[in-house]
């Protein structure tokens, strides 16, 4: 079973260049029908039970493809899905060329305050749109957003990636937790950016038609976190 899948993916992936080993997938750079692409392979995680592993890898591949399509239809910038192989849990994606992660961009501190503010406002707007489409990303971090800087009068483009933990839900609770996960990842990755994150939320609120109950839930989840007594 395992060897068969490994063989399949190795056939697919021969002659490609390993780009990065992420947390749950290996990413390779290759060409798909002549176009620069990224192969995201959810390989076996040997630490977990095979039954659990198969289930998670398959479910996440499926979720990732579904949510990318849904976002794309809503006009949110995401990589195009070129091809999916469910037997080896490989997704062939458009490569977002000349991009860097938002995390790298913020950390490089090459940008001015004004630019940072514009960036987080853009993030807020995109997340508002995504949530209004009932897509819950499930793993919002600044590593999972790619920025292709604009030049001169071309505006910079922001792509959302890594939808493996995503799902569809209209519940304010799920959207609130989605923002909570981002807030924690954002503030722990980029120390002393509380004000910047507030700006992100502000632009989310301004751009979303259903933000009120979401923000209320966000406050609730934050409070739960602070109230937890953490014994032991």
């Amino acid at each position: 079973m395992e060897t068969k899948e490994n063989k399949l993916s190795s056939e697919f992936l021969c002659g490609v260049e390993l780009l990065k080993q992420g947390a749950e997938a290996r990413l390779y750079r290759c060409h798909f029908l002549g176009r620069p692409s990224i192969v995201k392979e959810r390989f076996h995680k040997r630490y977990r039970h095979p039954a659990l592993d198969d289930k998670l890898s398959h479910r996440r591949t499926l979720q990732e493809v579904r949510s990318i399509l849904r976002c794309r239809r809503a006009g949110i910038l995401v990589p195009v899905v070129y091809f999916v192989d469910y037997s080896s849990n490989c997704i062939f994606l458009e490569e977002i060329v000349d991009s860097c992660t938002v995390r790298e961009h913020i950390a490089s501190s090459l940008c001015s305050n004004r630019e940072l503010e514009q960036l987080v406002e853009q993030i807020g707007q995109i997340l508002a749109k995504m949530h209004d489409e009932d897509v819950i990303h499930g793993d919002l971090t600044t590593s999972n957003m790619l920025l292709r800087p604009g030049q001169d009068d071309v505006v910079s483009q922001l792509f959302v990636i890594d939808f493996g933990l995503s799902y569809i839900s209209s519940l304010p609770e799920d959207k609130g937790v989605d923002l909570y996960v981002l807030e924690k990842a954002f503030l722990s990755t980029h120390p002393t950016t509380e004000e910047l994150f507030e700006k992100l939320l502000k632009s989310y609120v301004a751009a979303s038609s259903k933000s009120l109950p979401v923000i209320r839930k966000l406050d609730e989840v934050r409070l739960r976190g602070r109230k937890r007594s953490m014994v032991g």
Partner: protein
Amino acid sequence: MSLRFMGHRKDTVCINVYLLAFSAAMPVVIGFEGSANKIGIGIIRDGEVLSNPRRTYITPPGQGFMPSDTARHHRAVILTVLKEALEQAGLKPADIDCVAYTKGPGMGAPLVTVALVARTVAQLWGTPLLGVNHCIGHIEMGRLITRADNPTVLYVSGGNTQVIAYSQRRYRIFGETIDIAVGNCLDRFARVIKISNDPSPGYNIEQMAKKGSQFVELPYTVKGMDVSFSGILSYIEDMSHKMLSSGQCTEEDLCFSLQETVFSMLVEITERAMAHCGSQEVLIVGGVGCNLRLQEMMGVMCKERGAKLFATDERFCIDNGAMIAQAGWEMFRSGQITELEDSWITQRYRTDAVEVTWRD
């Protein structure tokens, strides 16, 4: 009255003691820990654990520990444990340079009990006091014992589930549980099927899991670098008796499946944080961290990433006094002390609330 045996006073005014301690090549720190059902007192001299005795308040199967009963237990044994700590270290109160105690987080009544004794001996002995964050105690003890330099820390215990990494003078929380702690989930499952609390529910689940073979699918909830265990707990609370009485699976199978599921979640969020921070070291601390299956799974993950795993055994994983002494020692060395009027306790005290003055 029973405090008498340690009523040895240093004949110096406080300020001199501080100066003395700072100039002393090897400050000796005693740590008092009692934030949950363990009471421990440990003595550390420059990274060397001189003594670390401990007692555990064990409740009957099916029962958790209540704050007031736990405090009563701690009160009853704390002076005996203190005597042991000094005797095993071969030290007199006059040899102690600083008294560290757990300021929080934890259960109110036991925290108060232990802090009171720490305050009292500090005054009797004329030594400075230091209020220590319990979670930081776990991290610093883990770093001391394993010599891990700058690891991604998985802190897992009865009350906490956090993935932590250090940056810019704070231990920052990258991921955590959004509801109950993993240890709490295990303990409460143990109560449902009446597994013994002696020596700990987690230990007994680990032993039973070794005999389980059938994997029962349970809810699996990872949200970014956060996890949630309440769904698994309520599912297993609802289903376990049905599944057991119908013969669909055994108690051992449930222990096995629960461990496989929750530990996979923990390894996954640790790996996410590592990928996010670009880290190549993992340190597991906290009571659940002495589970060998968890360590094994984490080891496999680390190997796949070319990373290194650091873990300790039950002496230092489970709450103990030395860890408070060690964090206290780091704080003391960097010039911190807690004034008597600031020596209160707090049930809520986040890991990232502490400024880490002892690391660059």
